[in-house]
């Protein structure tokens, strides 16, 4: 059973001669435990795809189904509940709450939602991400890589079934970038989540189970695992 399914999803921005077809009939599905990369040139529709999957943007037509729930059949309030419960976003580094310490960034989620990680799971997460020492620090006092790892911790903390990451390694040097991918991979396998990573960085596809290429709003799977790099 697919955790996530997109059926004939189209997204058009604007109208008339300014109309942009950002997504052209996307059919897509993802299972538990899969780490999926979406690559493609700038403006091809990757972010649009990710925000539609995350329920932040409604498609012009077609259906987005998350754990058997069609997102277009439910209210914005319920969509926001699904975001809270099912989806972990890894956003740009600057998207941490500036006045909360690392530990409190996670605690904020306890305020609004139950079923987050237990204390010992959290300690493991801190250890995995090597941010245990940063607990009492504020985002402004962290390096770009540290911030990114905290952002990942934030996404994982709520035990989501789907993790969506838009350029999670953009602000990192390549060593750090590999580490982050390694980490996402481990979490995906260990927790059996579905993880979708949008990236420019072709070297990162080695970590992924499936790779899709977005070109002008058309999503195509890149087939042979070993040829992934060559094909893109």
């Amino acid at each position, binding site marked *: 059973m697919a955790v996530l399914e997109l059926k004939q999803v189209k997204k058009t921005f604007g109208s008339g001669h300014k109309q942009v077809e950002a997504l052209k009939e996307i059919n897509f599905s993802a299972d538990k435990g899969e780490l999926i990369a979406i690559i493609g040139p700038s403006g091809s529709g990757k972010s649009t795809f990710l925000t539609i999957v995350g329920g932040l943007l409604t498609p012009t037509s077609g259906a987005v189904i998350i754990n058997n729930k069609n997102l277009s059949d439910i209210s914005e309030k319920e969509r*926001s509940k699904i975001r*809270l419960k099912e*989806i972990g*976003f890894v956003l740009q580094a600057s*998207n941490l709450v500036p006045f909360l310490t690392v530990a409190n960034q996670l605690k904020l989620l306890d*305020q*609004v939602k139950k079923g987050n990680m237990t204390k010992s799971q959290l300690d493991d997460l801190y250890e995995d991400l090597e941010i245990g020492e940063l607990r009492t620090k504020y985002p402004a006092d962290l390096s770009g890589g540290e911030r990114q790892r905290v952002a990942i911790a934030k996404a994982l903390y709520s035990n989501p079934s789907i993790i969506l990451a838009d350029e999670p390694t953009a602000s990192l040097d390549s060593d750090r970038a590999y580490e982050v991918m390694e980490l996402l991979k481990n979490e995906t396998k260990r927790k059996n989540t579905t993880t979708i990573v949008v990236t420019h960085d072709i070297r990162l596809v080695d970590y992924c189970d499936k790779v899709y290429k977005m070109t002008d709003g058309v999503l195509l799977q890149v087939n042979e695992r070993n040829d992934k790099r060559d094909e893109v």
Partner: protein
Amino acid sequence: MMFLAWNEIKKNKLRFTLIIGVLMLVSYLVFFLSGLATGLQNLNRESVDKWQAEAIVLTEESDKSMNQSSLTIEDAEAIDAKELAVIGQINAVAGNGDVKTKVSLFGIREDEFIMPNVTEGKVFTGENEVIASDVLQDEGFKIGDELQLSSSEQILKIVGFTDNARFNAAPVLYGDLSTFHRVKFGEADELNLTSINAIVVRDDNIEAITTGKSLELMQVETFIENLPGYTEQSLTLNFMIYFLFVISAVIVAIFLYVLTVQKISMFGVMKAQGISNGYLARSVIAQTFLLAAVGVIIGFVLSLITGALLPSAVPVAFNLITMSIYGLVLIVVAIMGAVFSILTIVRIDPLKAIGG
């Protein structure tokens, strides 16, 4: 609910101290003005409040001014009320040789309810003896002082003091009716022995009371509102207070709005994560409440301290009930100022936070 609010305050102490400071100053001003308003009101009405009466009868001609009203004891006898007291009143300047001051002389009957309590000295018994407002004590008058009056040959003698005895900003001297008659009409006058200025009525059912022709019965509150200057002063000060409520709402609205605009992308991120508008709105309200409550409490304490330090000539009197109501209004008004920010937050599109 307090989690976000409190952590933000902790991290940005200076910013929030400034907001608290501004709220504190506004509430300080509100409390102080309300103290001044109460003080000025007391200056005019405290002796009247002491009567604990429901109504007062004056002549129609007098246009609600006790000074201008002239009636007789017979008029009082014709009124059927549960309890009543007659009063003769005249304004004068009294001096003991050292100091002079404006006073209001009340001529009353010893066995009626206007008779004041004595805080020091004794009750008037003999001719021209008076009980004086203890305000005169502060101005340098003592028991045993002989008072010359501006408008009369009579010499009055202070035999005691009483508290809360100011009428229309002048300290009151209480004497018996004959003392009042001598002061007002002179020693030899035989015609005006029953002349008084007003009849004060204690009765829960004042509608049922009928008075003689050309007399007017009014509620004590109406009478007070018509004291010279009273309503004008009250209105001015109350207007300033209400204006300050509006100002504090605007200040809070502007401050919070600026803070909110700075945090738009942060709120966007939180919303993208699925944190509800409701939670964010409650958080803003909690924060505003916290800031306003702290500001108001500090302002409250400061105004009480200032009141205690001021010389007694400044007419401030703090009515804790009024102040508590004003404090609550300030907090509510501040929270109303936060509504703008909440609307802004509700309108933030979580997509914006994600970027392209």
